[in-house]
Structures are given as structure tokens and as C-alpha cells.
């Protein structure tokens, strides 16, 4: 039997879990902690914002994240220019002591679609500065290829716009990226709403799923986190196992030979 236990690789670091989870939008800090633990994720995303000394600079949240003992993946969410993204990445590197950056560079306010042109430029700048870039991008094969050419070992195309929960809007495009970039660690980032969406992405051969709202905004986030942990595992095993050949016409699985009551008319 094949093993679906092969670890996920992110810039040389190996992980058992193929689910990356966000830290935003949970109904309470406790639900956040419980959900993240239930997801079995080993990597959590977080961000930076202007601090208010009166609120003690968000120290409570920071302590809570540190207590989880997970690998941190800071993002550049909300950045609209190369300069903003590059400088926020540098601030993240100093605070979080990691050269990983989830590079988000928004090109449109309405659907939060990444700006592919600026994304390439920012990726180039950051890689030359020693960052390990995990770019959030649309499902365009050529953009993904250019990101790989720049040195990205991990690429994160969207399933659907951030926070929509619509699932994989263009499975064919995602499949093309998988087929054409077999060496890259591919993570579907954004747009996942249901465990079945995660299964579908994993069955396409994606290495992992990154999500936040699907768990944080579920009616029972902890239970949904458990569901996603199983979904990612099931989808991965399904991919590794290899699907049956698809057919256009029905083919009975029960033998027809020896069928009682049969007679030649």
C-alpha cells in the first residue's frame, strides 16, 4: 500500500499537517486557541498593525500565539504597493524572527484580487533580500511559473476570493498549475468554505490548504477545524491512491454471469 504520510515541505522544513490556519475572525480568543489546536495545523498566519500603547500593543494576542508553539507565517495583508509590502515584510522579519513571508499585494478592493505585476516585483525584491516568499496569487499558470522562476519554492493560488467560501472556482486552472509545476509546493490559499472544497483541492494534488474564515466563521469553529483536519488527510490519501479510470457509460460492478431469471428472448 502506498503511504499518504509523506511530509509537506516548505523551504526545506517538513510538516506532518497539510493544513495552514489563520488566526483572525474567531468569536473569542479561547475559540481561536481551541480551533487551531483542533485543526492539528502546525503553521499559523498572523499580521502586523499600528499599535496602541493604551491597549498594551496587542501583547495578549502575541502571548496567546506564542503559547501555541507553532511555526509562524506573517502576512502582508492590506498592502497595495510594492514598497508597502516590502517594508511590512522587513518589519515582520524583525518581530517574528522568521524569513518566511506570506506575500499579499492587493490589486483590487472589490474582490481583493492580487496584483500580479507588483507581486512579481515584490517577490523579486524580497527573495534578493533573503526572504522565503510564499506568494498569494490568482490561478494564472504563467504568473505561477514566473514566481517559480524567481525562486519561489512555494506558491499559493487562490481557490476563490478571500473570505467568500465559494470553493474552487476554476479547478481546471488549478489542475494545470499542478501539472506544469510538479516541483513546487502548491497551497490553495483563500476561498475555501467547506471541507469538501479542501478534499477537492487535495485530490488535485495540491500539497496543502491555507484557510481562516471557513473555520473561524463556522457556527462551531472547533468542530469545523476537526472536519478540515480529516478532509485534508482524506483528500491527500485519495490523490496518492490514484483515482479509478473515469468512464462515459455505466459498467455493472456485480457480475452479470449467472444472473437468475435471465433468459434469452
Amino acid at each position, binding site marked *: 500500500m502506498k503511504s499518504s504520510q509523506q511530509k509537506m515541505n516548505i523551504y526545506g522544513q517538513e510538516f506532518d499537517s497539510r493544513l495552514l490556519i489563520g488566526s*483572525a475572525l474567531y468569536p473569542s480568543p479561547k475559540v481561536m486557541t481551541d480551533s487551531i489546536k483542533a485543526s492539528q495545523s502546525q503553521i499559523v498566519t498572523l499580521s*502586523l498593525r499600528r499599535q496602541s500603547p493604551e491597549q498594551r500593543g496587542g501583547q495578549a494576542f502575541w502571548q496567546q500565539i506564542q503559547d501555541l508553539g507553532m511555526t509562524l507565517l506573517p502576512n502582508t495583508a492590506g498592502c497595495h504597493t510594492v514598497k508597502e509590502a516590502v517594508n511590512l515584510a522587513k518589519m515582520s522579519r524583525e518581530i517574528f524572527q522568521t524569513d518566511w513571508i506570506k506575500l499579499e499585494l492587493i490589486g483590487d478592493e472589490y474582490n481583493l484580487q492580487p496584483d500580479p505585476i507588483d507581486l512579481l516585483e515584490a517577490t523579486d525584491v524580497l527573495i534578493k533580500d533573503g526572504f522565503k516568499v510564499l506568494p498569494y496569487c490568482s490561478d494564472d499558470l504563467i504568473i505561477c511559473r514566473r514566481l517559480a522562476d524567481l525562486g519561489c519554492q512555494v506558491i499559493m493560488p487562490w481557490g476563490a476570493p478571500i473570505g467568500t467560501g465559494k470553493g474552487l472556482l476554476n479547478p481546471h486552472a488549478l489542475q494545470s498549475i499542478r501539472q506544469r509545476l510538479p516541483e513546487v509546493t502548491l497551497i490553495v490559499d483563500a476561498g475555501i468554505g467547506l471541507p469538501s472544497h479542501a478534499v477537492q483541492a487535495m485530490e488535485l494534488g495540491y500539497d496543502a490548504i491555507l484557510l481562516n474564515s471557513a473555520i473561524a466563521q463556522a457556527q462551531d469553529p472547533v468542530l469545523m477545524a476537526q472536519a478540515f483536519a480529516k478532509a485534508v488527510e482524506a483528500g491527500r490519501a485519495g490523490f496518492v491512491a490514484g483515482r479509478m479510470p473515469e468512464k462515459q457509460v455505466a459498467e455493472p460492478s456485480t457480475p452479470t454471469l449467472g444472473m437468475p431469471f435471465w433468459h434469452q428472448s
Partner: protein
Amino acid sequence: MNIMINGEVHALTSSTLQDILVEFNAQPPFAVALNGDFVSQGEYGSTQIAAGDQLDIVSPIYGG
């Protein structure tokens, strides 16, 4: 002098970034950008701030 910190005007007496961060009561952990450019911790003491400069002082927050 008046400088902008996190989008608001602050009247401060210090001139180096190091002293301004103390005067502002910045709570660690934080990172700083001056007029949009990152300033590393090691540069705080040698970075002079002028009237009208814009500082961003950021801290960890939840994110997706």
C-alpha cells in the same frame, strides 16, 4: 516638534527615534518604519527625527 505617529499628530520633545519610542511609550514587541521605510532596532539610536516625519509603530495582530 510635531510628528505623525500611526496616523496621528504627536507633539514630542525628543529628537532620536530611540527617545521618541520611549516618549510614545511603545510596547514591545514592535517594529518601526520612518516615512514608509523600515528602520531596524539597531538603528534607533542613530536615527534623527525631524518635524513632519511620519512614523509607523506596529505590533502583532491576528491575520489570515
